[in-house]
């Protein structure tokens, strides 16, 4: 049995989510190979080769993999699927984009967002915004899986896998990247941060979000997050959204400020180690999951908090 993990990377370096996917693969058990498809991605491949437990890194380097379009990536994965019992990708927007395509081309189910491995064919995954955990068994010959990164530790380094070039598939030319507007930030990445300062509608506007939360996040070395309401209202870009349909996070410390705690928001952060809630409404549902709740006007206490930490 061998497992093919599809690496997430930006051509230069490997994304952290790949490391969680490798851990999930190790739990399934079997020889682990990592596929790095990209353009000028030798460095990302070299990083993958260093991950503990990885036996081989396969690199498909071609211009038409630079942008990770789902059609080309899925076709490449399918062309290289023979001999693998499992195809595993992190449940990032990229993994979610191509993995179902791979599964359909192989005529198998796809198992989304696993948080646990019971055996080689049985997995645990959240449903209903994490209000239930389903244990599902696959009858397919190949299991195509996406891994919720918060469900598995990142694998350590210490490996020295062989790196092997493989042939690129044809450029299907079905979709073309026109532009990319990536949020630039000096802060840690939301899904990898140890501390997250997250703001909701209670902040009122984007200016308040900035002037109140940024100094606190700077002091704590934290990433910034937000509720859907804050994103919808334009306080912050879409990639700040934490929740059922945004990012799933599990930092050491999550500070929810002016967030009510709707189930869709809780779905994205309730596995955080410590949760702090600051809200002026003592009945806000966020207090039901908070380890430390401060019932107060955020405009008054957030600057105090930034000064005190």
């Amino acid at each position, binding site marked *: 049995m061998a497992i093919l993990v599809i690496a997430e990377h930006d051509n230069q370096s490997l994304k952290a989510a790949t490391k969680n996917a490798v851990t999930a693969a190790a739990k399934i058990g079997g020889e682990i190979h990592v596929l790095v498809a990209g353009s000028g991605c030798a460095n990302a491949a070299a990083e993958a080769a260093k991950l503990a437990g990885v036996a081989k890194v396969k690199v498909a380097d071609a211009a038409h993999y630079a942008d990770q*379009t*789902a*059609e080309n990536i899925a076709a490449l994965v399918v062309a290289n699927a023979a001999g693998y019992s499992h195809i595993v990708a992190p449940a990032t*927007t990229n993994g*979610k*984009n191509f*993995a*179902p*395509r791979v*599964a*359909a081309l192989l*005529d*198998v*189910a*796809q198992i*989304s*967002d696993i948080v646990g491995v019971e055996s080689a064919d*049985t997995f645990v995954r959240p*449903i*209903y915004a994490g*209000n*239930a*955990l*389903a*244990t*599902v*068994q*696959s*009858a*397919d010959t190949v299991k195509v899986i996406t891994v919720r990164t918060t469900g598995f530790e990142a694998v350590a380094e210490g490996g020295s896998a062989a790196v092997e070039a493989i042939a690129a598939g044809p450029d299907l030319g079905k*979709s*073309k*990247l*026109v*532009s990319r*507007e*990536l*949020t630039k930030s000096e802060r840690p990445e939301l*899904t990898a941060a140890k501390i997250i300062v997250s703001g909701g509608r209670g902040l009122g506007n984007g200016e308040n979000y900035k002037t109140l939360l940024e100094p606190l996040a700077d002091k704590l070395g934290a990433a910034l997050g937000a509720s859907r309401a804050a994103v*919808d209202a334009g306080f912050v*870009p*879409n*990639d700040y959204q934490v929740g059922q*349909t945004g990012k799933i996070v599990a930092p050491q*410390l999550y500070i929810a400020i002016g967030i009510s705690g709707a189930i*869709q928001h809780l779905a994205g952060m309730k596995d955080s*180690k*410590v949760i*702090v809630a600051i809200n002026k409404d003592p009945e806000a549902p966020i207090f039901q*999951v*908070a*380890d*430390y*709740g*401060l019932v*107060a006007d955020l405009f008054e*206490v957030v600057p105090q*908090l930034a000064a*005190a*930490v």
Partner: protein
Amino acid sequence: MKVLVPVKRVVDYNVKVRVKSDGTGVDIANVKMSMNPFDEIAVEEAVRLKEAGIASEVIVVSAGVAGCQETLRTAMAIGADRGILIESDADLQPLAVAKLIKAVADKEQPQVVIFGKQAIDDDSNQTGQMFAALQGWPQATFASKVVIADGKATVTREVDGGLETLEMALPAVVTTDLRLNEPRYATLPNIMKAKKKPLETVKPEDLGVDVAPRLKTLKVAEPAKRQAGVKVADVADLVSKLKNEAKVI
């Protein structure tokens, strides 16, 4: 140009589901059912394409129990022209649904199929991508902006790092994210009109699709409950607890 929009009937997003005590699933008897919110956004987008003179007809399709008729009527009240129910009591998983929609698309020949990015019950986020693969069509998932012109779709997508814009030739698949649009409320006259719009019912067998599930649910459990903690008196108390008790700062 026809636009096809698959819609799913799910437990309403305001309902907090309960896991059945025998661990066989969640209790959905007597709970409010609604159209999956992402599919509502998909219907709205299709109707706007028709209003803009880009689409000629908006067809909605739902696979599931007889009650999905309601979901189709809701979609027609938003402005879809007609509905197709693929009626089945089976546990329809994403791959099976993608094949059913493919059978409908083969007949209807839409140029654009707009799916919701995920259903809020099984949270799979698969069906649109699977359908695109079966058709050999391009896809743009998690859309926050869709422009259709000159036989092409230009779609802005919400991705982990921010936004990206893709261009694809039609026919193509789009899956919706939350910020694509804000669906309108169906007005009473439109709800009445929707009742008279055509709704056709077919069975998976009629479409020649094998819908046997590939995944078997062995059990459904409640996640570990988080205990509510304490209320702190003030900022000083909070900082002291975070430093000395939780030791996270």
